[in-house]
């Protein structure tokens, strides 16, 4: 779809645990030249959680302004709800401006690591999987809708890192959710990966968790 190799990430937390957007199947590497990272947290919340000093600035159109910061070599956009097509639209527009690339250069490869709902402790166990399925389904719909709003057509690769045995959304439930979200094909990499992981609230840190990579393709 595109000459330039870029990627978009969703629902990031601490930069230390950012999603590796260079991984492709079978432990392959597809080094991205630019990665636009987005996080649900507003900038104040994010700074309080992670204690990282940044020099943020506001960007976007009037009415849809977001805080942005350059962290190491990546632009991060704050306050982006991955289930909201307009938020993704705004983030990609900002990425297009600052990286000087086309929408398709960012949207062709989308990564998310250990996405799960906020405030999960308040949910009954049997509702937790359903709530996470709904979350994944809504994210799928939002990225497809954002692609349409941005005039992107072709294949969107949506890479999801999640352990097959993660009880919050086990593999089969995850795949069902991605299908409900409209994917045309889904597969799981036979190679497993290891990442350190931080919880949504930043209060829990896990070292070297094994993770599995799932790829859902969307035709738009």
């Amino acid at each position, binding site marked *: 779809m595109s000459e330039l190799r870029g990627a978009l990430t969703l629902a990031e937390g601490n930069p230390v645990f950012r999603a*590796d957007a260079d991984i492709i199947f079978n432990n392959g590497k597809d080094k991205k030249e630019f990665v636009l990272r987005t996080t649900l947290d507003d900038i104040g919340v994010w700074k*309080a*959680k*992670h*204690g990282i000093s940044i020099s943020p600035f506001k960007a976007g159109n009037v009415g849809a302004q977001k805080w942005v910061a350059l962290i190491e070599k990546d632009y991060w956009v704050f306050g982006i709800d991955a289930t909201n097509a307009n938020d993704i639209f705004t983030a990609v527009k900002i990425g297009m401006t600052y990286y000087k690339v086309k929408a398709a250069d960012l949207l062709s490869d989308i990564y998310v690591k*250990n996405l799960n709902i906020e405030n*999960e*402790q308040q949910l009954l*166990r049997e509702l937790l999987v359903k709530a996470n399925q709904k979350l994944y389904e809504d994210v799928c719909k939002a990225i497809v809708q954002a692609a349409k709003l941005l005039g992107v057509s072709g294949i969107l690769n949506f890479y999801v890192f999640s*352990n097959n*045995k*993660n*009880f*919050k959304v086990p593999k089969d439930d995850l795949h069902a959710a991605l299908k409900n979200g409209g994917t045309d094909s889904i597969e799981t990499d036979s190679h497993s*990966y*290891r*990442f*350190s*992981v931080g919880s949504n609230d*930043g*209060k*829990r*840190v*896990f*070292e*070297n*968790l*094994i993770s599995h990579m799932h790829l859902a393709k969307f035709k738009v």
Partner: protein
Amino acid sequence: MDGSNIWVIDHKATLSEFSPMNLDGSSWILGVCVLSAINKEHALVKFNAFLKSEEMELIEIYGSQEYSGDFFKDDSRRSTQINNAARMVRDDGQTCYVYARTSEAMAEGIDGNE
């Protein structure tokens, strides 16, 4: 804070299948719990309540000490995570759990992509 200090508890505990701490189907975990308490006794009571709420059971405590930045001056991942947790506990008093290593992660060795 309310005269409380910060405590750092190194331990091993079981994980139930549906423990909120269980992201990979593990049966146990090694970790460092960072919490605020007025003394060591209170810290241990609070730690046990935390484990219970997370559907975990204590196997062994390897060490419990009052936090001081003097002890965590190296730039290891463990120290970095403990220092950041101590900062957050000081801010809002909520217990943190860092440098967690699950039985599944340990089973295949700790060397990984990171």
